[in-house]
């Protein structure tokens, strides 16, 4: 039997970690009355969001109606499924709704899926639990407004180790310490995945450790990639970089753009990064994560023998970074106000209005009524024009 099934907790008490989240969850469900805000569980995969919802319903005597984000894509669909449940609850006993992967609701926004969901969430007649991996996107903000958010965190390595050792003891198995550490790091706090790897390792499957690059950090990996002896080696390093794709693309971008390269090579490399960025754009816009498998294939074209590229975290000199951060923010505030007064966009204002305005003010033929931050940045910018 799969360990991840065998050791799935039977009740909430058996769940490992995230004690606070568990407590808020139990409180919420225990005290639930008509009108109580829905609950939004946010956290990375495999740490027990679904398990929590399933166990909670069992323990509190509800009937779980569970649906996936793909069911709730359009307004029509969501109303079709949910309205009957919300309307006459008696027929179905004591129902509770669980919607998984709400951050995956996508597609053209005019289908109104999120809006329809938010409308339902506003007036809950039965308990509703939502689960999501992340809560940062715009539509998640709308959902968060009408729900109580509970965050679940990845389990810390220490706890993972205790947990895995306990399981191994029960199974009468053992894993070499080196493999154990690697496995814990790789799992990133995902219990489901560590159970799967533990079962595989205890069953005699030995991953290659000697030539594995997986323990390298970003800096080392990027440097090793460009210093690789062969395209195959470079590719192996690339595949071993298990980091967020955006981070991966940016690490290469920063390193390449800050290295001194002949224009023709720079052009080819940026072209490759541009392709990678397009792929990533498609992935996040359409949520088509299966496309991710092609990313390393594209990035491997960055390998050129004999180029001197060194890892760099930042791709702009410090003064520029500071100017973006502070002056950029001040100018944004200034142009937002003035652009509205002049009936143009911020971009147009910056291009065709601001420089002339600064010139007039510098020559004292124009005086404007400005607040403190605005006049400060104006003074600063006036000093910059010739």
């Amino acid at each position: 039997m799969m360990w991840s099934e065998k050791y799935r907790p039977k009740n909430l008490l058996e769940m490992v970690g995230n004690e606070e989240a568990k407590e808020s969850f139990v409180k919420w469900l225990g005290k639930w009355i008509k009108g109580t805000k829905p609950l939004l569980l946010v956290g990375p995969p495999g740490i027990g969001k679904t398990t929590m919802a399933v166990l909670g319903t069992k323990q509190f005597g509800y009937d779980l109606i569970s649906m996936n984000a793909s069911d709730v894509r359009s307004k029509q669909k969501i109303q079709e499924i949910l309205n009957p449940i919300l309307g006459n609850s008696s027929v179905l006993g004591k129902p509770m709704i669980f919607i998984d992967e709400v951050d995956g609701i996508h597609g053209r926004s005019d289908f109104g899926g999120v809006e329809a969901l938010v409308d339902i969430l506003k007036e809950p007649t039965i308990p509703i639990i939502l689960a999501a991996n992340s809560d940062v996107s715009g539509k998640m903000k709308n959902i968060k407004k009408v729900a109580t958010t509970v965050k679940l965190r990845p389990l810390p390595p220490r706890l993972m180790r205790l947990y895995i050792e306990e399981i191994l003891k029960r199974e009468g198995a053992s894993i070499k310490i080196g493999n154990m550490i690697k496995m814990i790091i790789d799992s990133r706090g995902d219990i489901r995945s560590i159970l799967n790897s533990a079962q595989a390792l205890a069953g005699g499957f030995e991953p290659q450790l000697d030539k594995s690059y997986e323990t390298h950090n970003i800096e080392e990996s990027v440097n090793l990639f460009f210093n690789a002896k062969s395209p195959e080696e470079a590719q192996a390093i690339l595949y071993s970089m298990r980091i967020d794709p955006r981070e991966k693309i940016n690490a290469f971008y920063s390193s390449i753009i800050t290295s001194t390269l002949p224009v023709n090579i720079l052009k080819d490399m940026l072209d490759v990064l541009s392709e990678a960025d397009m792929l990533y754009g498609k992935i996040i816009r359409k949520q088509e994560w299966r496309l991710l498998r092609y990313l390393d294939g594209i990035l491997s074209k960055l390998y050129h023998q004999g180029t001197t590229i060194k890892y760099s975290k930042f791709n702009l000199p410090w003064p520029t970074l500071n100017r973006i951060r502070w002056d950029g923010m001040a100018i944004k505030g200034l142009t937002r106000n003035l652009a509205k007064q002049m009936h143009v966009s911020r971009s147009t204002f910056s291009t065709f209005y601001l420089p002339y305005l600064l010139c007039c003010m510098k020559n004292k033929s124009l005086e404007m009524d400005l607040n403190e931050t605005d006049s400060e940045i104006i003074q600063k910018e006036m000093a910059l024009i010739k």
Partner: protein
Amino acid sequence: MTESSMWVEKYRPTKISSIINQKEIVGSLRSLLKNTSEMPHLLFSGSAGVGKTTTALCLAREILGDSWREYTLELNASDERGINMVRERVKKFARFSGLDTNIPFKLIILDEADEMTSDAQTALRRIIEDTARHCRFIMIANNISKIIEPLQSRCAVFKFTRISEEDIVSHLEEICKKEKIKYNVEGLKTLYQYSEGDMRHTINMLQATASVGIVNEDNVKSSAGLAKTSDVSSILKLALGGKISEARNKMIELIKVYGMSESDFLKYLNEECYRIKTVHLSEMLKAIAKYDYRLIIGANPEIQLSALLAELGNIEK
């Protein structure tokens, strides 16, 4: 003399009849105004600074009277982040009715509508229909071909033409006289040449020049370099010269410090390519087109634009 406002606002026409050089448009708008309650949605197209926004504001004044500001929502698609933002703001604005007064409808002016993606424009269709009972839209675009057909068909379309040199110069003369500033006609003609018929740009340039001294050819030339489009032109020069890193730093400053939008940057870059007279024009335009498309698909505009600079740098080799 110390002024407290920008002339471009001070001298913006407030009546349709004082709009310069768009006689046919003014004529047909007049006839529409005879029966305001039946006015359709409007779509104004034409290049920058020919009076599209001004005409829309004049209409707002004439239809809605003194309290026009209250019943007019001005949106600029280049500033709004996504169609949902537009939907929210339109919804909120349409909701408070205020229709107990004697205004025929509320007005929504959507500037730079051609900056919206076609998906967003499709969504806008619904928004327009949902609010049609209480609201009229005036959409403004530089390029009508970037507005999807279904939106065009919901509007009466007005194509604004460029303002002639004569008209601009005589308008500038009028301002000069009212402001009592020294000028010569050569200076005013130079203003026209630098702005390429963009009235608001011309007036801003005029005001800056006047703050230096007499409006003559030399002074105009020196103030013309102020506009951020000249930064775009130096970025292009740096890139073509293979100085990618410098070009990129300057471009990032323009976009991230001053807030020039990426699509405006590409627009000005494209215009600049025609201006510099080069045998590589078609290759350059091809590169811009390639990365303009990739910018829409991609996730990080900076990567796409940097890649464009490097590709431009490789052309003259």
